[in-house]
């Protein structure tokens, strides 16, 4: 079953947005997508780096009026 997951990271400052992403991703199934909203300007580059480092896929990143919306898909397999 695919349900749309959302997380609001508004107001959080570094490193808490990615800490929250790390906590949320554990609850998701492989391949599941979620949307994260943030307003910390650092989140723009950080979410990209976080995805590069963890291997989860950054599907979309929108930056409009200081509101950042990222769509992330959890990676299929844990590659060691």
């Amino acid at each position, binding site marked *: 079953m695919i349900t749309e997951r959302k997380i609001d990271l508004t*107001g*959080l*400052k*570094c*490193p*808490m947005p*990615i*800490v929250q*992403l*790390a*906590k949320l991703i554990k609850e998701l199934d492989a391949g599941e997508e979620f949307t994260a909203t943030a307003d910390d300007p650092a989140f723009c580059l950080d979410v990209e*780096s*976080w995805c590069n*480092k*963890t291997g989860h896929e950054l599907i979309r990143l929108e930056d409009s009026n200081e509101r950042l919306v990222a769509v992330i898909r959890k990676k299929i397999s844990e590659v060691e």
Partner: protein
Amino acid sequence: MALEIETVSPETIATMEQRIEELEKKQKNTADVNALSMVVFSGELDKLLAAFVIATGAAACGMRVSMFFTFWGAAALKKSGPQAKGKSIVERMFGCLLPGGLGKRKLSKLEMLGVGRQLMTREMAKKNVASLPELIETAKELGVGINICQMSMSLMGIQAEELIDYPGMGYCGVANLVEQSSSSNTTMFI
């Protein structure tokens, strides 16, 4: 097309197994790009904040993080409360000069007899920047490892019961740090 199957001699298999074993051993000894080792030497609030932001951020990125607290860093992890019993006069003096409690950590700059720190702490709360206790709680949740330099503890008369409660906190020496550091691709000194 017929499939050709080559028979492999037991000697070849033995050589291959040996080579695999050697490679696995080599692989085991290479630094892990997903590991971060940190030496926290400083005990000032700003430097501790930087150390824990990096540690929790790296752990959130899926890295194995281990922090080694030495000297002022070790003393900075003392919790508030009375000193432990059985200390020498000099150790008690060190205990008084290095008071416990995360809230007592000073800034390395702009401390201004506590005024600067108060302003900084107020701004942090206003701007929703995580405080030191919050970051330490996050480090716990994310499984960041903390080890304390036993030599620093003995030198300053710090006893384990005087330190903050942290799951799996270890008390060790430089060999442990060297092992952690050499198996991590990155080591920081703060």
